[in-house]
């Protein structure tokens, strides 16, 4: 019998340099408490745990969307790795050479009614990363968590830790509470540009997907992921573009994580069409007034394809062998310029890098850009 081979990824994956830009760290929240200054907040955390989050939970097909009490939830279904040794072990299995660690879903802190506690956990999480996770020699990097609900703290964290070598991006989540083109976020963008850090915007299960009546009409997890996350990503992307964020901050790059890739051509080309006939309200946005501009400097699609990137997971291409559609999709989304590989380990929707090798329409150069080239352009990787 042939020797047992522990094959978990495509054999050619080990010949390529692969940067994974969405590797989740599912720390037990309790691990952060020692990084919170002693006082009222820490006492509350130690006694009652983190504040509750509202909104939808992940829909799990057999349990009404409730998170289960065993370790086998969709969020940790492929395992747990919380220190450099464990993370490196998973990286080696999946042929990942460099991983950007992002918070796990248990660190989602939006919608908390106790911002003082949420803020303390943000600081603690970032300190924990520096102290116990980031290991540049092993290729373990991280995104610095900057809270969208407190711009002052976001800027403070960027000033405090933004220069650390191991932070290659700043991290936040998409919400419908306030779209990311809001001028209140400009201090964050200024700091990001100064530090040469891109902004990661990740989906979150606590998003309010449009009006409540629509959300309550949803019946399945597939709807939530396709429509809910899709809405949130599209709304945020077009809001960034149309309010002139990339005119004021032309070197800012934003990476959308886990909300798909195939929306890019829809938004780019539809926005170009609409903008050409509906151009006269652009002058009224706050940022356009500040810049004293009447129109955007470029067409919307140019910002979509130059300043915006998407993590590839979930890749969602038609199943093999229906690959005939894929070449057209890759061209329409300008894959070589927009896609950045992400695995989403350890979530159920994990995408090992295999798919990149299984699609004939992906050339060697496109593969290189997807697996590492675009990430190296966008992230602030140490030399």
């Amino acid at each position, binding site marked *: *019998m*042939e020797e*047992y*081979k522990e*094959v*978990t990824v495509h054999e050619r994956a080990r010949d390529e340099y692969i940067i994974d830009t969405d590797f989740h760290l599912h720390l037990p929240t309790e691990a952060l408490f020692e990084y919170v200054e002693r006082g009222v907040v820490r006492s509350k955390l130690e006694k009652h745990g983190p504040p509750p989050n509202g909104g939808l939970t992940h829909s*799990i*097909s*057999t*349990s009404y969307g409730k998170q289960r009490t*065993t*370790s*086998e939830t*969709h969020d940790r*279904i*492929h*395992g747990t790795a919380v220190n450099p040794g464990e993370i490196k072990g998973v990286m080696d299995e999946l042929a990942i050479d460099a991983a950007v660690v992002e918070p796990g879903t248990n660190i989602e802190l939006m919608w908390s009614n106790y911002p003082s506690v949420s803020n303390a956990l943000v600081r603690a999480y970032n300190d924990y990363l520096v102290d116990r996770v980031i290991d540049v020699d092993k290729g373990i990097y991280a995104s610095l968590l900057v809270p969208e609900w407190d711009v002052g703290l976001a800027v403070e964290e960027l000033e405090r830790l933004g220069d650390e070598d191991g932070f290659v991006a700043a991290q936040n989540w998409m919400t419908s509470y306030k779209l990311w083109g809001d001028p209140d976020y400009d201090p964050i963008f200024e700091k990001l540009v100064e530090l040469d850090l891109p902004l990661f915007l990740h989906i979150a299960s606590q998003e309010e997907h449009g009006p409540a009546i629509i959300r309550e009409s949803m019946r399945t997890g597939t709807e939530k992921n396709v429509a809910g996350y899709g809405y949130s990503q599209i709304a945020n992307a077009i809001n960034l573009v149309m309010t002139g964020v990339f005119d004021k901050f032309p070197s800012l790059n934003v990476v959308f994580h886990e909300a798909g890739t195939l929306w890019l051509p829809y938004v780019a080309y539809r926005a170009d069409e609409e903008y050409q006939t509906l151009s006269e309200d652009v002058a009224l946005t706050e940022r356009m007034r500040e810049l004293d501009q009447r129109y955007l400097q470029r067409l919307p699609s140019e910002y979509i394809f130059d300043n915006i990137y998407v993590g590839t997971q979930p890749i969602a291409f038609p*199943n*093999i062998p229906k690959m005939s559609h894929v070449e057209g999709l890759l061209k329409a989304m300008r894959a070589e310029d927009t896609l950045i590989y992400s695995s989403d380990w350890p979530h*159920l*929707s*994990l*995408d*090992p890098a*295999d*798919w990149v090798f*299984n699609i004939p329409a992906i050339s060697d150069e496109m593969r290189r850009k997807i697996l590492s080239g675009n990430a190296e352009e966008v992230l602030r990787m140490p030399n």
Partner: protein
Amino acid sequence: MTRKKIGDVEDFPQRKGVPVDVDGIAIAVFRIDDEFFGIQNRCVHKNLPLHLAGHERVVSAELLETFGFDSDPKEDVRGRINADCASINCPWHLLEWDLESGSNDVMDVSIATYDIEVQDDEVFVLL
């Protein structure tokens, strides 16, 4: 039809996938009690190998104790081998594959299955 030896019975532990390559054909072999099943070692969802089903690093003893070998296969336990209905849950994204028919009800597709024979403690695949 040809018979190709793929190992001895002792090479195939209970309820744990074993990958074999027979003339370039990648097959995942599963042993459930006295029965042997062979299925194409590629889940067509994302083209990833199925043979990790049943392995401790995928489906832990704790999980099996919690959910059992024989509870509803639709319980979301990745990589579980469902003895009652002779199926496996893909170790990557949970798709359930019938080991006898190769079918998945959700995608309404079937993947290749292979007949496995045991004679005098030797295990053969029939091609």
